[in-house]
């Protein structure tokens, strides 16, 4: 983080359960916050639900270098804080709670929360995605005991230690670079011969003396007694096994959509992502899906924001025609 004592997330909001809202936004990452900015400018009466922390996955990115307008880059956490301030400027209500279920009766959506059932004419689903769990039998045993899904959160526990990063995409290489500031040695384990990450990130990783690579390997077991002590990997071609002595395993092998909430309500693709058209409409009129939770070809902050702008504009039109 840029600022050690910057003010994040303080505004207090409460929910008016007797009100019928124009728009309920579910998810407080870049997509949800952008939808809120647009909705505020359309003067829609809207509410945004976030279940854990405003910011979404990008909040744990140490440095974002591909969001336009920040030529030097910006930390993920500062970027979303700016989004949030902008949304608040246009009057967004942000409520920190989870939505437990959604149903549609006639033209109204009913969202069940711990504060009661909220009614809204339209819903924008911006629930994002979450990291896929490491597919080894010991995942549950070692989660939080050396297996981690958040390098920004947990890197400091591995000062002068050896860690493995599983994956070869942008997140994995970002994680490896973050970890290299703390750990003695970072080993990137990736199932293919080449990394998938953006070239500029690859270059940074290849030129970092602390980072080494085990390419064409997959993890098969995490070893240890009470905490992680090693990682057993298998060569995808030769099937040869070997053990890496590591104290931590950071996992970045892809994402699964947070679409449980709308399962059975809207059409999902075979991987669980919400199917939308160009207008972000789902199979249920009045319900839109934006950002990482939908079947988008590119999961980035900038595309999530684009989706959200479209969905908010469509929701505005939809309400006017009700």
């Amino acid at each position, binding site marked *: 983080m840029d600022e050690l004592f910057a*003010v994040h997330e303080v505004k207090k909001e409460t929910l008016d359960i007797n009100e019928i809202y124009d728009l309920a936004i579910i998810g407080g990452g870049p997509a949800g916050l952008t939808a809120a900015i647009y909705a505020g400018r359309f003067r829609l009466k809207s509410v945004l639900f976030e279940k854990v*922390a405003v910011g979404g996955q990008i909040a744990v990115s140490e440095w974002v270098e591909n969001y336009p307008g920040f030529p030097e880059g910006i930390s993920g*956490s500062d970027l979303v804080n700016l989004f949030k301030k902008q949304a608040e400027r246009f009057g967004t209500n942000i409520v920190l709670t*989870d939505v437990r279920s959604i149903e549609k009766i006639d033209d109204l959506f009913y969202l069940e929360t711990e504060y009661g059932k909220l009614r809204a004419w339209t819903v924008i689903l911006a629930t994002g995605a979450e990291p896929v769990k490491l597919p080894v039998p010991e995942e549950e045993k070692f989660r939080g005991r050396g297996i*981690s899904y958040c390098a920004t959160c947990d890197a400091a*526990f591995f000062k002068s230690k050896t860690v493995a990063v599983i994956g070869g995409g942008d997140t994995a290489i970002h994680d490896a670079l973050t970890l290299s500031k703390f750990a003695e040695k970072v080993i990137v384990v990736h199932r293919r011969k080449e990394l998938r990450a953006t070239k500029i990130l690859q270059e940074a990783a290849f030129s970092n003396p602390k980072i080494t690579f085990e390419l064409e390997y997959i993890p098969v077991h995490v070893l240890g007694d009470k905490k992680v002590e090693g990682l057993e990997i298998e060569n995808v071609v030769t099937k040869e096994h070997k053990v890496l002595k590591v104290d931590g395993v950071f996992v970045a092998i892809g994402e699964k959509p947070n679409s449980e909430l709308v399962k059975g309500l809207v059409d999902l693709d075979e991987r669980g992502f919400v199917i939308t058209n160009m207008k972000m409409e789902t199979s249920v009129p009045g319900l839109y899906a934006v950002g990482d939770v939908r079947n988008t070809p590119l999961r980035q902050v900038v595309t999530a924001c684009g989706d959200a702008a479209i969905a908010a504009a469509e929701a505005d039109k939809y309400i006017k025609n009700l």
Partner: protein
Amino acid sequence: MERLLKEKDVEYIKDLFEKNLKDEVTLTLFLETNGPNVTKFNEQYLPYTEEIVKEVAELSPKIKMNIYRDDPEKEKEYGVKAISALFIEGQKTNKNIVYYGIPSGHEFSSLLEDIIDVSKGETELPIDIKEKVRKITSKVEILVFVTPTCPYCPRAVRTAHQFALENPNIVGAMIEANEFPDWSNQYNVYAVPKVVINEGKAEFEGALPEDAFLQSVYEALGIKLV
């Protein structure tokens, strides 16, 4: 020391306090100790902790500040487990809302929100959760291990502190894991937030919703729900 709060944030927080503070709040800070039972700590953070607490206390006439240095009696009275310890006190607290280590990064917001809650003497927990929390009659100690760079951590810290404000039997403590490596090692903290209840009778990682958090408290107390 150079001031830690930026001018624009100072204005924002002043305004926030002006609008939201009701009763007086006291920030009680323990900075030095020779007590034998206090966890080992990392001294480099102490000047910053002192400075940030002083700066925050200046932002509203309703905020008072006490600093204790090597005061074994007071340490005992408050049940101080490590240094630095910052207690947020108001009419409804019971020396049970505490930060061990510096409330920086994402936790700075937790501090501001706690001050507001303690001043109002109420939390925004849903009614059903409040009622269940208030019914707990046994002693509960909730430790929440965090790092300042963890955006999911404030939710866990806040829940522990809200429970504490609702019930004087509950102590809610944030622990900045970087400052207390031994304490973190004792509970095998390798990922945050990590919540440890009653010395490990129940524990979990991650920011859980309040109802699931409460289930863990019940689990630590051996309460089975039908």
